[in-house]
């Protein structure tokens, strides 16, 4: 054996099988290695070994197995045997497992004991088109109902807060204030400055045609204050904080922590949603204001490369914006802040009880937030336009 080893290791180990007939009994002889990583015939090849008369009822009394020359086996061998067993049962020939190693016998019995169909949840087969449409519609309605219920719950919770009945931890609130404000400053600054540069650049290409480069200042200042400052801050916070809220609450849901709060007589909305929502409501306008200023600075950097003097740009900017424009942007920022925290917390609270549900909740929170932000921005812009603000 030892001397053979070097020779064996280069070629894969082999498993073979042959069929013997004696009287009305068939016997499969397995030899060699039937394991993962060895070579042996597949089930269809073994099936071909059986004589044609195999299909004729009561020609053969039983199918036996001989494994005296079998060296080792694992689950692949089991699979082959299960297939053979299934095939012979189908053909009405009794399969005798007495020749198998006792381990294989036991595993085969385990594997073939059919799962209790009672316990497995009944799934209907593919639903019809109308069932799908109906199902989706109902789901949509449920989703909308969820939105309204949650809005109501938040309103009640704020009422409790103002009457001094809501409870949450001050430390939580401070933590979220920091998380939604200072911690987000670097990324908000970076994006805002780039947006300022981009606005200025796009404007410059067009305005240069008319020799009106100086109006870049108006474009950047108005664009940042009315739209882009709040919008970009919101998109960043939606991806950053909204997703984080959903994941935090979702994990708490999985971990039964929300149940635990509830059974302690603490309202999860008060305890978890209020601090998150409030801190974002406070921080979003501040972030948007910061983004406005940084964006204008970005536009200014771009303008410098176009030979616009610093003073000129400054004057043009000051003349083009007033407090009202900032007000519009900040108003939007508050709305966006609410929507981000709302979607994050809503999806977190709705989260199922598994790890993948947490991922879904985070994704869904970001998508919901961005949809809400863009839709509400459009609505607000139209309304302000009508009101001439």
């Amino acid at each position, binding site marked *: 054996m030892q001397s053979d080893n070097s020779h064996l290791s280069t070629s894969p180990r082999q498993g073979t099988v042959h069929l013997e007939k004696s009287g009305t009994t068939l016997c499969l002889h397995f030899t060699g290695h039937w394991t993962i990583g060895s070579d042996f015939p597949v089930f269809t090849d073994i099936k071909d070994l059986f004589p044609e008369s195999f299909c004729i009822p009561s020609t053969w009394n039983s199918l036996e197995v001989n494994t005296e020359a079998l060296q080792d086996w694992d689950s692949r061998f089991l699979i082959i045997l299960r297939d053979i067993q299934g095939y012979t049962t189908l053909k009405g020939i009794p399969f005798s497992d007495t020749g198998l190693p006792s381990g294989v016998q036991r595993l085969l019995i385990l594997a073939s004991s059919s799962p209790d169909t009672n*316990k497995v949840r009944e799934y209907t087969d593919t639903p019809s088109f109308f069932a799908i449409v109906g199902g989706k519609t109902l789901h949509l309605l449920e989703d909308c109902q969820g939105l309204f219920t949650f809005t109501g719950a938040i309103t009640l919770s704020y009422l409790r807060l103002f009457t001094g009945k809501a409870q949450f931890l001050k430390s939580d609130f401070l933590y979220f204030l920091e998380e939604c404000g200072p911690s987000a400053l670097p990324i908000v600054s970076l994006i805002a400055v780039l947006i300022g540069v981009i606005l200025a650049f796009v404007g410059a290409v067009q305005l240069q045609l008319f020799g009106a480069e100086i109006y870049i200042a108006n474009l950047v200042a108005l664009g940042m204050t009315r739209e882009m400052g709040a919008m970009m801050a919101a998109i960043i916070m939606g991806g950053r904080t909204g997703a984080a809220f959903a994941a935090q609450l979702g*994990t*708490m849901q999985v971990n039964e922590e929300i*149940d*635990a709060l509830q059974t*302690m*007589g603490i309202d999860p909305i008060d305890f978890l949603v209020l601090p998150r929502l409030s801190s974002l409501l406070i921080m979003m306008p501040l972030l948007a204001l910061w983004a406005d200023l940084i964006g204008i600075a970005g536009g200014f950097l771009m303008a410098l490369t176009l030979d616009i003097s610093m003073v000129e740009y400054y004057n043009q900017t000051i003349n083009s914006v007033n407090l009202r424009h900032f007000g519009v942007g900040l108003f939007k920022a508050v709305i966006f802040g609410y929507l981000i925290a709302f979607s994050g917390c809503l999806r977190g609270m709705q989260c199922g009880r598994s790890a993948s549900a947490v991922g879904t909740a985070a994704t869904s929170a970001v998508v919901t937030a961005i949809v809400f932000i863009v839709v509400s921005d459009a609505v607000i812009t139209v309304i302000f336009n009508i009101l001439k603000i």
Partner: protein
Amino acid sequence: MTTAALITVTNLTMAYGSFVLQRELNFTVHQGDIFVIMGDSGCGKSTLLRHMIGLKAPTAGSVHFHDTDFWAVSDQERNQIMRRCGILYQSGALFSSMTLAENIALPLSQHTTLATAEINDIVSMKLALVGLAGFDHFYPSEISGGMKKRAGLARAIALDPEILFFDEPSAGLDPISSRLLDELILELRDSLGATVVVVTHELASIFAIGSNSIFLDADSRTMIAHGPPQTMLATTSSAKVKQFLTRGGSFH
């Protein structure tokens, strides 16, 4: 034995959507009982606990706490009742963003007017009771699974509840710790006068502490045995219950 009824479950049907877990459950938990809920994995034991705590509304039937129907009263009243319950969740359910001490202090600071120093005293006492003295400032992620169970227990008994619910308290504990936990449960029952409802698979615990029990069956989707564990074993006609209680014949 025949003390006042604390929780009465009548004709309870539990379902998730259209998926019915159990139907026609009828039983009563009496004051001072250690009530054991048994059954195969996935038959709805944890869900039954959620119904008994008032976290989930019955699909049909009712759950009464003393004489109040959980779902016929306002949210406030239900909250009031929940406060009198201590619950140890299957997963521990410690707040992961708080230390053990803060976890245990939370119900105390929310529902009592105790000073911080007093709360701290109670917290360290409860931690000591479950053998976790000195772990006040650890976060749940920094302790082992069995320790989380015990910390969850410390939080459950923070408010000296009238009734304690345990969802598989000894799962993941070594035999010695799980015996200590059993003794602790008995001790709590006797010293606090608490009633205990416990979901467990531990035969040793079931026979050592259980004073009444039910057996939920996943196949027939209802309870198939009811009574003190010893009596249940002696009188049941169901092979499944017998097997469960004797670990398929190998437990004596």
